[in-house]
């Protein structure tokens, strides 16, 4: 993975010093909260319901063992012994004290980590496929380009005070595991007629209170022009994005109001002027960065899982292999997802001890590499198939072996009203109730792939719009209610879920989901037709009827 050179080190330690001074000024009263707010936000520091929350950046979701160990240390020393992995592939600490934050940042900088631009109206952490550089279906490893975008966007002087936050997602595989069409800019690897790999650019996607699917603004941008093209989009957005209403300030609204054709014209006109200039990416630079992401020294092997055999002899391990492993480009290897969705647990949370265990496993079995997925799980990207059993045994010991990846209990869940100042309703208890309802291995296996995403308010941090079943917490006359949506899809066949009907109380949610699941089980053509496939085939009507039939 990428290693800091002297520039990055200087950059990050400069930033720590800068923020230490800003915190000092805040504590000394030289800065009002209003003035401090944008500064702390640019360093990932939020004020939540009960305390500050520090969001630490995991660039494109890639980490090594010492970094995860440092996060464990921070959780133990400065927080309450745990951290929360997020849909942005980052980690959040929920209880830091303001005066400790400069020290936390300094400790992070020791392992080449920081909290820069994890918040505020700037270009946020670039996110990508958690199996980048490992997946069998990949056209190109997106991480070198993600790293180059990270560098270009770090404290960009022109784009630090945008109308609103700006998220870029990039994927190198045809199966979109990074939800690129739900980002302000989405990049999908694409081959042109000559077989050159470049980027197809989507713009204006997003969730929140006005969910939109990103539209393709340009079919193909070669690597060398990518930064110039991104800068063109950002400049158009910075100048013309709405600033009069924060709820209409994202680029999706600009694209929606002006029309894709107009925005494309403005971006193209800007691109014509900046392309070929200082942002042209030289091939040597791309190669230099690529070298950091060279594949590890795989051991040649033709090991493969014998699932049928495993199922007969070791059902628990078989389930783990079936659901938590992902096909690897290298024969004899697999990518293992470590589910942070234990039945009845808090989705995305990991204790300091669990982080240390995973760090050890990464070191021993995954070439020191780790990933965070936007589904709030951890990934060991390169595990030899012959080592999977050993990994599983350790995970099991630490309650990390839940075999539910992609299943109904693998829910994306925002922190909700338990932590968040913006939330209207709690999310975590809903996830816990649903997990208990559907959590037996047999039940989950019978239902098959089904994504339930839960948000505690319309800001949609829990991605409810793209859940096959989405749960949205709302507040009506002092009561927390939940609206259910159906048919959302974050993948390459992107779709936004439709609201099924009036909101219901928390206690009614498991039954309502149960009725939707029963409807699916009743109408699927074969066991292989997934929930979302069935919904797309038959439409919402039978589900809506089931939802309303209390």
């Amino acid at each position, binding site marked *: 993975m990428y290693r800091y050179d002297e520039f990055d080190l200087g950059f990050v330690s400069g930033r720590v010093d800068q923020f230490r*001074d800003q915190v000092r000024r805040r504590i000394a009263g030289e800065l009002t909260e209003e003035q401090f707010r944008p500064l702390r936000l640019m360093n990932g520091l939020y004020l939540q319901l009960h305390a500050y929350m520090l969001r630490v950046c995991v660039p494109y979701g890639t980490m090594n063992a010492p970094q995860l160990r440092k996060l464990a240390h921070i959780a133990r020393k400065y927080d309450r012994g745990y951290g929360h992995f997020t849909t942005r592939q980052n980690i959040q600490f929920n209880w830091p004290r303001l005066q400790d934050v400069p020290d936390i940042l300094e400790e992070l900088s020791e392992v080449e980590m920081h909290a820069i631009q994890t918040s505020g109206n700037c270009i946020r952490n670039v996110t990508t496929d958690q199996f980048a550089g490992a997946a069998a279906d990949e056209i190109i490893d997106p991480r070198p380009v993600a790293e180059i975008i990270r560098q270009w*966007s770090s404290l960009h*002087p022109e784009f630090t005070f945008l109308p609103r936050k700006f998220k870029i997602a990039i994927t190198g595989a045809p199966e979109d595991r990074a939800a690129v069409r739900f980002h302000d800019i989405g990049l999908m690897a694409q081959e042109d007629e000559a077989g050159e790999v470049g980027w197809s650019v989507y713009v204006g996607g997003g969730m929140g209170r006005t969910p939109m699917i990103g539209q393709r603004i340009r079919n193909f941008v070669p690597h060398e022009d990518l930064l110039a093209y991104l800068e063109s989009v950002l400049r158009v957005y910075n100048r013309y994005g709405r600033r009069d209403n924060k709820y209409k300030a994202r680029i999706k609204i600009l694209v929606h109001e002006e029309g894709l054709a107009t925005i494309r014209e403005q971006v193209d006109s800007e691109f014509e002027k900046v392309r070929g200039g200082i942002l042209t990416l030289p091939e040597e630079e791309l190669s230099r960065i690529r070298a950091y992401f060279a594949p590890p020294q795989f051991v040649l092997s033709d090991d493969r899982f014998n699932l049928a055999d495993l199922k007969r002899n070791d059902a628990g391990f078989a389930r783990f292999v079936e659901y938590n492993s992902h096909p690897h480009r290298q024969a004899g290897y697999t990518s293992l997802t470590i589910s942070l969705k234990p039945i009845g647990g808090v989705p995305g949370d990991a204790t300091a001890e669990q982080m240390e265990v995973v760090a050890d496993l990464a070191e021993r079995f995954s070439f020191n590499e780790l990933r965070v997925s936007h589904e709030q799980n951890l990934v060991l990207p390169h595990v030899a198939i012959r080592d999977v059993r050993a990994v599983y045994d350790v995970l099991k010991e630490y309650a990390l072996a839940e075999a539910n990846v992609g299943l109904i209990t693998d829910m994306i869940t925002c922190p909700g009203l338990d932590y968040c100042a913006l939330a209207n309703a709690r999310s975590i208890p809903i996830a816990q109730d649903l997990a208990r309802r559907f959590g037996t291995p047999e039940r989950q296996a019978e239902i098959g792939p089904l994504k339930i995403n839960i948000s505690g308010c319309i800001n949609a941090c829990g991605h409810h719009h793209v859940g096959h079943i989405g749960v949205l917490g709302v507040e009506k006359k002092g009561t927390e209610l939940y609206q259910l949506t159906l048919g959302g899809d974050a993948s390459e066949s992107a779709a936004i879920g439709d609201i099924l009907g009036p909101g219901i109380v928390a206690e009614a949610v498991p039954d309502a989901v149960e009725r939707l699941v029963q409807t699916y089980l009743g109408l699927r053509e074969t066991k292989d037709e997934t929930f979302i496939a069935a919904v797309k085939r038959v439409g919402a009507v039978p589900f809506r009827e089931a939802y309303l039939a209390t």
Partner: protein
Amino acid sequence: MRHSPITTKRTDPLRAMGIIALNGMFGEDDTDGVIRKAVEMFGRDLAVVSSFGADSVVLLHQVAAVDPGLPVFFLDTGKHFSETLQYVTDLKARLGLTDVRTLVPDSKDLERFDPEGRLWENDPDSCCHIRKTEPLNAALEGFSAWITGRKRFQTAERGILPHFELTGDERVKINPLAYWGEDDVAAHKKAHDLPEHPLFADGYTSIGCAPCTSAVQDGEDARAGRWRGLNKAECGIHFDFNGEIAPAEVKNGPVLFKKGRFVADPFKPLAENANLKGVRYVHVPLSKVKDNLAAIRQNPHPLGLLIESSDRVEDVAGELDRFSSVAISFPAFGDGRGYSTARLLRERYGYRGEIRAVGDVLTDQIGFMVRCGFDAFVVANDATKRALEAGELAEVSVYMQPVGLTEVPVGTRPFLRKPGKPVTRRP
């Protein structure tokens, strides 16, 4: 002919070379020669400005020897010591000056800005402005050159003063006494038996208005008694927008930060119904420029352009050369449109004049602004003023991306990244 805007680099090179040549023609002590040359070159286009202060008699004596009919302007601010007013009458008679003109402040200005006559107490800069700068600007309108009594030794800021000086508004300022020392002044007074200002004996070595003048102690700078305690050294009439000779150091009041220090701001707000053909040193809003192109093109004076955050710089791209300063407005800390505007000005339109940030300007933005092309900042926030003064900009000095013209020698450095200058860097 369209008048050129005024900046150092835009000064007519031939004219500038002429000035250099002129300065080479006279010995340091050839005061008489300098005055004669000025009269020969400018004739009735030449005026003298005198404070009738402690040393003024020397210049007036020399001038009278060459041409006692030269117009001599005296700024009667209404705040002078009575001794000074008496001294004016006395010197006129003694030296035979036939055209001493007294300039008084605009009564409307006084009524509006200083109805109680106490403006000097809290805003000496504005006081100087309405009582000195404005009346003098108006009086000098018809002249191409003026003679002053400024001397190098008087303050550190005047240390490089030449005989002939091309000022920002394209007038020539003539400083015949530039090289005179304190002893020369005393000796000249004695040799010609010239009358002293009545207050000189009491320790007043530089005399301006009564409220803002105090006596100086031995060893102090001769002008140390002016605006004592205010960190203000010049009243504004000697301010040159080029900033080359004597930008006044100001820390109270005007808050323009440029080239590493606070300087007096020659620009003033644009009056609502001002005639755009005649205004000077104001930033004209972009929309007004668009609507009044003819007037702006006819205006011969230094002008600035004000770009609001919703304005498009493209709309006046063809007019940019005409402005010596562009003010980009930041209506709120978080409104970042101005950064794009500045980059377009510098990088796309090659604008080389001053770009100043106005509005909500805080220390935490300044590093970003400098990178986008800003070189001047109008600062209101006290903490930011202190940080700028101390050279403590809150910025990260390692840059992860190329921006701007100077940071980017294409092909001569590793792509994308370049270490910034040390953290002590100032805009």
